[in-house]
Each structure stands twice: as structure tokens, then as C-alpha cells.
């Protein structure tokens, strides 16, 4: 009977480790896939600028008037749309975050109730350590690749965070407040960026309506991203594991919106 229980525990532990490995691999593959897909989309766009001064006519810089040029609708409409967008973005982000909080609690409760006989510290370290292993492999193989500095900086950060955590194990334990700066940071960046995109790119009624819809999408992305951070932090990395938060925050939430919005806007609106 006792032997069966031990074997059962080993079996559960084995499955948990496999699950963690799968989670790490899926996370890394998704990031890589998103990167490659976006790059495939924009690499064909010819950005080379012809030298205007070599021609026989005037140059771009000889144009008078503002760079904003003529607008179908006035600046006041753009500013109004900016304010509406900011309100929509904040409202959607806050309300959806509240709604998703229940789902988050349910997920965490389900995880806590699961018969996982595994060290919680091990669980919390699995994702960052797994990430570090992937970065180490990339560091060795991508020496001449253009992404090498990105890999090097992230490797430095994850190693640094692991060292700090080793010296201060208290940061492994849950702390709900940590999500506030992540949410605030992304909210501010999203509002500012979305506002500038609206002012720079959207001139017609159709484009301004599109900007408001995009603001709602941004709010949803922020709420969803915050929930993912909360779940991942609580279940694996620990809320004070800032490297993880940084990654998900900068390249997950804001980065996701950023890629979608900039590619969408630049390919959609006309020159």
C-alpha cells in the first residue's frame, strides 16, 4: 500500500515536470512564432527612400505647411477621438480585469486543489530557469545573428534575477500588489501610444472610428495580459520575479498591442 502511494507520487511528480517542460516549450515557441510571422509580414515592405534632392524638382523638405497636411476632419476631431479612445481603453481594461479576476481565482484554486506533490519553489523556478536554458542555447548558436544583443541582454537579466532570488528567497512568495505597477505601466504606455497613433495616422471618419475600436482591443489585451501575468506569477514564477513580469509586460501585453496596431494601421491607412 505504502509502495503504491510512493509510486503514485512519483508518477504525479513526473507528469508535473513534463507539464512544466511543455509549458516552457510552448511559451518559447509561441514567442518565436509571433516574431517570425510579424517579420514575414513586414519584411517585404520596401522602405528605401529615394533621394529627392537628386531629382530636378522640389524636395520633400521644400514642402510648406505642417507635416500633418490636410485632414478630412479637423484636429479637434482627432483630439476628441484621442480622449474618447483613452476613456474606452481605460474602461475596458479595468472592467475586463475585474471580470477576469474571478476566472483567475478559479484557476488558482483549481491548481491548489490538484494533487500535485511537487515542491512549490521548483514550480516557481521552472519557467525562468527553462527560459534561461533556451537563452543559453540561443546565446551559443546566434553569435553572429542580429538578435544576439537582444538575447544577451535578456540572459543577463534572467541570470541576475536568479542570483538576486537566491540571495533573497522571500521574493518567491506571493504578493498581490506587484501587479499594480505592471498594469499602470502598460496603461500609461498604451494610452500615450494609442493617442499619438490616432493623431499621426487617423484623419477620416472611418479611421477615427477604427481608432476607438482599436482602443477597446488594447484595453482587452491589457486586461488579458494582466491576468496571464497574475496566473503565471502565482503558479510558477512568483509575483516578485520581475524578469518574468518584465518579459510578459513589455513584450507580451504592450508588445502584442504594438505589433497589431502598428502593422494594422500602417498597412490599412493610405499615404
Amino acid at each position: 500500500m505504502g509502495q503504491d502511494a510512493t509510486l503514485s507520487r512519483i508518477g504525479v511528480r513526473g507528469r508535473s515536470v513534463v507539464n512544466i517542460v511543455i509549458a516552457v516549450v510552448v511559451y518559447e515557441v509561441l514567442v518565436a512564432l509571433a516574431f517570425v510571422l510579424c517579420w514575414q509580414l513586414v519584411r517585404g515592405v520596401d522602405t528605401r527612400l529615394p533621394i529627392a534632392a537628386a531629382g530636378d524638382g522640389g524636395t520633400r523638405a521644400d514642402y510648406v505647411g505642417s507635416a500633418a497636411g490636410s485632414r478630412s476632419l479637423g484636429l479637434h476631431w482627432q483630439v476628441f477621438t484621442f480622449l474618447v479612445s483613452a476613456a474606452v481603453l481605460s474602461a475596458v481594461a479595468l472592467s475586463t480585469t475585474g471580470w477576469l479576476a474571478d476566472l483567475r481565482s478559479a484557476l488558482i484554486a483549481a491548481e491548489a486543489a490538484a494533487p500535485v506533490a511537487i515542491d512549490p519553489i521548483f514550480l516557481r523556478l521552472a519557467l525562468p530557469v527553462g527560459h534561461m536554458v533556451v537563452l543559453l542555447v540561443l546565446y551559443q548558436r546566434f553569435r553572429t545573428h542580429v538578435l544576439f544583443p537582444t538575447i544577451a541582454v535578456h540572459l543577463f537579466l534572467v541570470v541576475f534575477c536568479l542570483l538576486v532570488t537566491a540571495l533573497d528567497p522571500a521574493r518567491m512568495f506571493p504578493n498581490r500588489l506587484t501587479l499594480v505597477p505592471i498594469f499602470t505601466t502598460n496603461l500609461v504606455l498604451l494610452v500615450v501610444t494609442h493617442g499619438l497613433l490616432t493623431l499621426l495616422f487617423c484623419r477620416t471618419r472611418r479611421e477615427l472610428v477604427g481608432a476607438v475600436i482599436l482602443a477597446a482591443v488594447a484595453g482587452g489585451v491589457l486586461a488579458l495580459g494582466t491576468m496571464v501575468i497574475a496566473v503565471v506569477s502565482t503558479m510558477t514564477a512568483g509575483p516578485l520575479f520581475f524578469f518574468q513580469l518584465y518579459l510578459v509586460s513589455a513584450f507580451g501585453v504592450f508588445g502584442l498591442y504594438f505589433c497589431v496596431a502598428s502593422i494594422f494601421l500602417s498597412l490599412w491607412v493610405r499615404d
Partner: protein
Amino acid sequence: MTGAAVSFLVAWNVTTTLLALIVLVRQVVVTLLFHFGRRGEINRLPSDADLPRVTVIVPAHNEERVLHGCLDSLTKMDYPPDRYDVVVINDRSRDRTGAIADEFAARFPFLRVIHRPDDAAPGKPAALLDAINGSTSEILVFFDADYLPPPQIIRRLVAPFRDPQIGATMGRVVPYNANANMLTKMLDLERRGGYVVDQEVRHRMGLLPQFGGTTGAVRRSALEAVGGWNTISLAEDTDLTYRLFIAGMRVAYVASAECYEESPETWQVRYRQVKRWAIGHNDCLLRYFFATLVATKQPLIARLDAALVLLIYTVPSLVLLNLVIALSLPSYLGETWAGLSIMSLSLTIFTGIGNFAPFYQIAAGCVSDGQRRAFAAVPFLFVSSFTSLLACNAGVLQLLKDKLFGITTQWDKTQRFRGSA
């Protein structure tokens, strides 16, 4: 960690983070000023009778891959031949650079070559000084050997010198190999932000545009008035820009003076280039920061902006250091208001400055160029941002080390990628 140490770290973090925040806010304000502000008057070109005598200087160190294109362009300039000459400096080259320059000199009488011996002082600034001393023109125009200047560029660069307050002019640099790979695409975008928007707004607002050392011109009398050419600095262009500013003169940005250049195509070459700029720029920061702030011949807003621009290559180090400090703070601080504020600000600034600060200017630049589609590549800006982040930090450390041990930093030439000669 003691309370005093924590307090110091918190104070340091908050102060420097706010500094970086000011830089971020400046980027946004400049973008809005550019996009909604009115452009200047049409840059009318001077007639032949008004054109001053100019000497074009082309420093070349192992430039056989690119020199032919540059010299070929310089032989097709729309400028009166009796007021135009070209000096090519073959700076201790080991390849066919000298031979190529000599071939051109044999065919075109207005072009001459200075061959610098192996024991000459190394570096581009020293090479330029030889050419400056060997010419008599009032206006000196500079092009790097990989540049491809169009016919009217010199007329455009000399036009602002009608104003006696103008000590130097600077044109717009456009990469011709933007489509080579991801890095060159990003560098092209960065150029749009830096030149199309930032330089333009600085010029328009009466602030201080940067004289970049190439695709630019300098008034000889102004150069002599501020003490001549600095051959020690790795950023002799920045050095001259600030000396002119402190002396009460202005630098004019000429947006219509566009010139092709070659962008680095590998991260290693870009890394070395930015590291060199970071060393030179931060060296200027140490020498001119306070002098810039008290340059009473200039308006207050111009002084403040010029001082802020001097910090550009320091901010990445401050930002990374702040993030490291925020990560290192004891976990109990994470639950306090102060701890949360520090972490939030550090994260915002690291994300904002590191990846997205230039984004707004680039977006405005793409709109201005009528190439909104180029903006689609902006999310990949982190590729060049992280290269610059590493290089700036390495540059700051190198400068500190050199200052500490009294070492003279060596000039590092940028590798070229154009097809073989």
C-alpha cells in the same frame, strides 16, 4: 542592507528615472511639434554669384569598396568649378584607396590627394585636420567615403551661411541599403526619427541641431574662433557643435540636403559604431554640460535642450542601472508605496526609453516622408535598441576606465559592406 543604503538607492533610482522620463517626454513633445507645426520657408538656393569658395574633404581609411562611388558623385556637382575643390585624405590605407584617389586626381584637376604616412597620428579627426590646414576656402564641406552626394547638395549646405551667426550646417542622411536585412531596416527607421523629426524641430525652434561630421559644412572663421579642430575627441563633430553653441553661434539643419550613406549590416559593426559614439558623446558631456547650461549667449530653452541632448548616450546606462537596482531592492520594499513607485517607474522607463521612445518620432517621420508602410516594421525596433543598449553601456564603462587610467581611446573605423571594388 541598511536603511541608509536603501534610502540612497531609492533616491538615486527616483532621480535618474525622472531624468530619463524627461527625455521620453521630450521625444513626445518634439513629435507633436513636428507633426502639427509649420515648416519653414522654401530653402531658396543661392545664385552662382553668391556662392562662396568651398573645399570638400573626404577622409578615407581602407575604403576601396566605396570610395569610387563617392568621388564619382563629387565630380558631378552642380557648383561653379572655379570655387570648388575636393581633398581626399588617404589615411594610412593598406588597400587600393590611395590608387583609386590618385586615378581621380589625374583626371580631375580640382581633386587632390593627401597621402598620410604610416607614422601619422591615427584617427579620422587627425586626418581631417591635415586637410583643413591644407586648404584656404572659407567653407569646408565633409563627406565620409561611403556617401553618395547628389549634385545640388553643396549649394543647399552653403545656403544658410548667408546668416553670419551660422557656424555649421548639417544635411539629412538616408541609408541606401535599408532593405539589406532587419538591422538596416531598423537603422533606416531610426534615421527618420533622428533627422526628419528631431533635427528639423531643433532647427525650427531655434535649438541646437547636431553637426554630424559628414553631409555637413563648417565656416572656417567660426572653426578658428572656437579653437580649431579637436583631434583627440572620438566625437569631434559633437565637440565642435557644442563649442559653436557655447560661443553664441548656431548650427542650421538643411532637410533638403539629402545624401545616401551605408548602414552597418551586422550587429557587431553597429555595436562598435555606437560604442565609439557613446565614448565620444559622453566625453563631450563631461566637458560641456555645465558650460552649455550657462551659455548666456543662447536662449534658455536652447540651453536646456542642448544639455538634455548631451545625455542621450548616458540614458541607456542609467535606465539599465535603475532596472537592476529596482530588481535588487529587498522584497519587503515591494509592498510599500515607495517600492511600487520605483519598480513602476523603472519598468516604464526601461520599456519606454529602451524600445519605444524613438517610436513616436519615427512614426511622424514615416508620415512626413509619405511612407506610412515603413512604420509597420517599427515593432522590431528592439533589435537595434538592444544593440545600442549594450554598446552605450560598454562605451560608458570604457570611457570611465580610460579616464581612470589616463588611456587615450583609439579610433575604430566602421566596416563597409558594399560589393568589392
